[in-house]
């Protein structure tokens, strides 16, 4: 069954966003009522999380009519729980380290601000970092529209984060800009790389990626907290182990739901660019509001402000986030370029030259009537001409080329 790639992408990213809002509400409840120590919460969530993730992935490994349950209901690429491959190791190490740092940072932010509808918008700043990193790693210089959208989302997120309870501190800003966002970028980019890998000639599956990410993040968290305890003579590791036992139910609940949020997020990452996925997932700021109102009603977080200025700021922030997301989503052109190469020139060398052009996402040497097929991605047709066509024309080996704009596309996911 082939469906429009973008529909699946948005369905996955929005589902992930809704679940993320729910998870933040549960996290906020836990940190406000049960485990106030962010280090200890970090340790306990990964220890319990590894166990819960193992149970979930074993459950989804159960075969049903020759296919695993996970393959039928979660990710068609999933077969069963498996050991990570050698080529996945370095990506898991970096993504696991990123997850460990961002989770501890996020719990610190949550313990400071308390309100999930304040913390979640703030965490969307990571999108700026992602656009910058993608311009380096994916040979895709951000266009003006991408920069505009990112800035709109970021300002919207900042406005959203100073409303409801009206709390904002320099310390929390430092955590967001220096800890959470860089760590989120590592986590997000390397999970995407894992998702793009082919394992045994099949696309890598989101369930195994998530499970091994939690395992690696657990190891890194224990190492980081142990070093911190050793240097500061504190006892966060022990507190974390105790919390894992005493509040097992709550931590298992949040980590169980988080598992699904990230599985959907990883699948979305395999379809869209990391920055666009992050932009859509930024809608979590909207979904967090009703949850925050519930928390406030039960006195778990401070009462939500009724100051009209604060409410107006919140509305402006949300509007900006939505506008940023929409403009991100609606400006992307794709095209195929069919190329014939002059005789006497190397196809492989020509492929390498084409691959170096910004915006080229795929180069394939093919057998007749054309020699090379190139797939490109550009934000505007003008940029497609300036950055791609002009560069192609500079390659001496190219005899002729044909540009075929993609009007609509379906893909097997």
């Amino acid at each position, binding site marked *: *069954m082939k469906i429009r790639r973008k529909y699946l992408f948005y369905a996955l990213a929005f589902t992930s966003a809704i679940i993320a809002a729910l998870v933040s509400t549960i996290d906020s409840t836990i940190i406000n009522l049960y485990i106030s120590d962010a280090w200890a919460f970090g340790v306990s969530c990964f220890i319990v999380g590894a166990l819960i993730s193992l149970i979930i992935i074993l459950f989804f490994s159960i075969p049903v009519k020759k296919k695993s349950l996970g393959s039928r209901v979660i990710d068609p690429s999933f077969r069963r729980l498996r050991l990570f491959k050698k080529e996945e190791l370095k990506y898991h190490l970096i993504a696991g380290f990123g997850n460990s740092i961002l989770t501890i940072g996020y719990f610190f932010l949550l313990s400071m601000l308390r309100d999930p509808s304040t913390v979640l918008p703030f965490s969307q700043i990571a999108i700026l970092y992602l656009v910058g990193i993608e311009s380096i790693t994916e040979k895709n210089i951000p266009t003006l529209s991408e920069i505009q959208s990112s800035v709109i989302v970021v300002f919207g997120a900042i406005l959203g984060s100073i409303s409801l309870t009206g709390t904002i501190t320099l310390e929390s800003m430092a955590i967001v800009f220096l800890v959470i966002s860089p760590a989120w970028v590592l986590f997000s980019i390397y999970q995407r790389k894992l998702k793009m890998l082919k394992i045994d000639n099949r696309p890598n599956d989101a369930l195994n990626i998530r499970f091994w990410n939690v395992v690696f993040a657990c190891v890194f968290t224990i190492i980081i907290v142990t070093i911190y305890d050793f240097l500061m003579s504190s006892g966060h590791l022990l507190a974390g182990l105790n919390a894992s036992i005493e509040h097992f139910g709550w931590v298992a609940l949040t980590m169980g739901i988080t598992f699904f949020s990230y599985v959907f997020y990883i699948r979305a990452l395999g379809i869209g660019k990391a920055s666009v996925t992050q932009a859509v997932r930024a809608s979590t700021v909207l979904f967090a509001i009703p949850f925050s109102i519930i928390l406030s009603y039960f006195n778990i977080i401070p009462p939500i402000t009724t100051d009209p200025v604060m409410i107006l700021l919140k509305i402006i922030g949300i509007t900006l986030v939505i506008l940023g997301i929409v403009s991100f989503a609606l400006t992307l052109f794709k095209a*195929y370029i*069919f190329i014939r190469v002059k005789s006497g020139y190397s196809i492989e060398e020509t492929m390498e030259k084409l691959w170096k052009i910004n915006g080229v996402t*795929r180069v394939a040497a093919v057998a007749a009537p054309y020699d090379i097929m190139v797939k490109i991605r550009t934000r505007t047709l003008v940029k497609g001409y300036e950055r791609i066509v002009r560069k192609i024309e500079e390659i001496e080996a190219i005899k002729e080329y044909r540009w075929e704009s993609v*009007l609509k596309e379906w893909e097997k996911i």
Partner: protein
Amino acid sequence: MINAYVLTVMRPGNTDKAIKEMRKLENVEKISVVAGEYDIVIRVHVKSLGDLLKVTDKIQLIEGVKKTTTQVIEKEIAL
């Protein structure tokens, strides 16, 4: 495994119906409606050349398909 692009030229008026049929085919990874010399670019992923022939045969039998050209991928670089 063999990957190939099947470049398809369509007769006017049948494209939507033909795409519906193409989406049902096994081994079809991607269907792109394009503007230019061709009308639809189909990416297929098969185990052997025999399977490739079966897929291209099925595509050619779809109503509205006027002509197909198969480009077998020999080497590929992708993000």
